[in-house]
């Protein structure tokens, strides 16, 4: 005997099996989803829901694929939210710093009243208010770190009384930080040049002319870089393929 609980999805009452996720429970009673379902693993933010429990006054936020059914849930799907998005091309004006540019793109962050609602509702438990403060203070590195696992469900933006589009501001913070503040990979330009070099083309040509047997031999003779070798320090004995 499966225990059943009663929930309301989009105003309709459903008796569903207890212990299941909301998504599986609703599908188990025959519901077919088109909007509001995505990766089914809690990483894409497509199935954001707002819900309340019975007589509780608190509005909660969750993901349909992650939340387990509970008696008396009243659920509203939030498939989309018109969060403001600034147009930008990742460039900076002369003399403009990346952190200043992000504030210019999203001046709303300066209006934060620190109510903490964004952090309270975040279904992946980010300190949203914290990273908004970091953007405001010009700490893009901190904001990038704190917002790194944001699934862009937009629940924070929907609840913000100061109308801050937090997910978009965080996305800009991460990209401007990544492009303008993090040091470029020093080894990459060399790798690009080597990949495009005549020598590499010749080596490819040599391998492509090999018989299946020769290729297999070459494969079996590969030298394996030790897992604990610091990057850029180890070199193989045979450098003919480099």
């Amino acid at each position, binding site marked *: 005997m499966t225990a059943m609980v009663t929930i309301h999805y989009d105003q309709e009452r459903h008796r569903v099996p207890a212990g*299941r996720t909301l998504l599986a429970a609703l599908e188990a009673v025959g519901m*077919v989803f088109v909007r509001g*379902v995505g990766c*089914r693993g*809690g990483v894409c933010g497509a199935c954001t829901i707002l819900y309340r429990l019975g007589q509780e006054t608190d509005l909660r936020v969750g993901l349909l694929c992650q939340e387990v059914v509970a008696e008396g849930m009243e659920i509203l799907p939030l498939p989309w939210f018109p969060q403001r998005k600034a147009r930008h091309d990742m460039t900076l004006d002369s003399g403009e710093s990346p952190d200043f540019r992000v504030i210019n793109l999203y001046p709303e962050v300066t209006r934060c009243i620190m109510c903490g609602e964004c952090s309270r509702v975040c279904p992946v438990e980010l300190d949203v208010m914290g990273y908004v403060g970091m953007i405001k203070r010009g700490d893009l590195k901190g904001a990038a770190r704190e917002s790194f696992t944001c699934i862009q469900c937009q629940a924070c933006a929907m609840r913000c009384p100061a109308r801050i589009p937090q997910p978009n501001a965080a996305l800009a913070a991460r990209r401007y930080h990544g492009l303008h503040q993090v040091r*470029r990979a020093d080894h990459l330009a060399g*790798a690009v040049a080597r990949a495009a070099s005549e020598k590499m083309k010749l080596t490819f040509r040599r391998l492509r002319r090999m018989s299946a047997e020769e290729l297999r031999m070459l494969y079996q003779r590969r030298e394996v870089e030790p*897992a604990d070798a610091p990057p850029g320090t180890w070199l193989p004995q045979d450098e003919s393929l480099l």
Partner: protein
Amino acid sequence: MDRDLPNPFPEPLRSSARLVEATRDQRLARSRRGEAFPTLSLAERQAWVEDFHPDHQEGGRRELRVGGAAGTVLPVELADLLEAWPHPAVRIGPIPEPDLIADVLILGGGGAGTAAAIAAAEAGAKVVIATKLRQGDSNTLMAEGGIQVADQECDSPVQHFLDILGGGHFSSDPELAQTLAADGPATLQWLEELGMLFDKYPTGRMKIRHGGGTSRKRMHSAGDVTGLELMRVLQDRGAALENITVLPFQPAVELLTDEAGRAAGAVLYHLVQKRLRSVAARATVLATGGLGRLHLRGFPTSNHYGATADGLVLAYRAGLPLRDLQHNQYHPTGIAWPERKVGLLITEKFRGLGAQLLNRHGDEFVHPLEPRDVTTAAIIRECREYANGVATGEGGMGVWLDIPLIDLLHGVGTIEREFPGRFKEFHHKGLDLRVHPLLAYPTLHYQNGGVVIAPDGGTDIPGLLAAGEVTGGTHGRNRLMGNALLEILVFGRRAGRAAAEFAFNTKELGVPSTGHLEVFLEQLATAGVDKSRFAPILLPSYGGNLKPGQAVPGGSPASPRGEPVGRGAPVFEPGAGS
């Protein structure tokens, strides 16, 4: 959830988890003495794989009777879709007045599609992306592991190429494998220039590690959310290009061609408004992703909700050759419980650090680091043949992955340090990976094969290009970890550029038409294919007897109406629309 209880598992997981605890000290002592569970001989490996790996299950395959690949043996679930009727509302014949006209139409809004759109739009084309759900909803954003690029001093694209060939048992198209490896460094540089965040040292040098089957460390990552970070950045770049239009909730149900045999766009189906829409385009890019949601042999999957092989169906009907589709990648350790994570991967790294695989009695049954296909076969053998699996409340099955061993072997704090994302995620839901084992079962992860392409993404139909998981050849019969994220970008951008060029060189587009279907329809009729079988199915029909993402014994899961998945399409209402 029993959040406050020390043992978070419901019965019968709870009693079995106690047996795992009971045998842990002995197993730990053996591990410390360096006594590992014996590895299989090559002959044993082969026997286990042939007897238990899903690719080898006799009942799971059948011969195609219709179309260009008639005679090829494929998984039944896929064969049923390749040999299915177009949706009845699709008119067979010319569509003189399309609803929308574009230079380049891109089918699919995941990583490959978005990369193609960016490349085509940067070349100046007017681009339309038609995607099944929202843009970005894809397997791309679910990728955790990383992206392989040969960028170190000890490495080279040729070395990468050799790893790709060997990993795929020397079955790759060497031209495609070479292209993948050779374009790697420039692709990584492009991502860095887009402001994508990578794990780096303070000097800017990227952190790298090995993946299964690599001879050099070339796995680059962004924490354990590499795909999510990649997809967010690609989408943001795409959003800055005004010549890209996104049509969400509008998957393609048929390709269009003109009288000259060129690609001419596609017929879309609006999932919300339930009507058809036609887009005429001078070039079309197929980037529809994989097939995990067909749940081959009833297996759970790590794939996105929309991964239903649509692109393969459209391409096959249009007469394009497909390859290697009998080989699908199953990851040995997908999560089997709790339900909200069913099918998602538990990375090999856990086993690399000492976590053991245990049956319901808490006993080891296989060396934890056999090759993927062998481990997969071993777990299925233990559950199905010896009934030593743990049954979950939702009808699935699994074996334990004893993660707490890692801290016992390497010191307190190792688990939290090495797996911050997974640790935090489970911890919030009351499952402490330092204390509790996880239940695992093989999960359908990747479609190795697909549409045959040239290095620029070109297919046998002029003006039709393809990129990403829908294509085949790059990885041959088996893909190495980290090569999928590279593939979608390398071939996505190549296909986008080639599509833009083709569009600019196509002065006059003929009348778009579905007329190319006529021969195929005759063949379907001759073969007597069930008239109620339609494809593409667009979404899996969960509900009723089918518990999403869980193993269904004995074949095709069924919808509430009793139709197996893949027959009929509850989201598609024939007769609606034009």
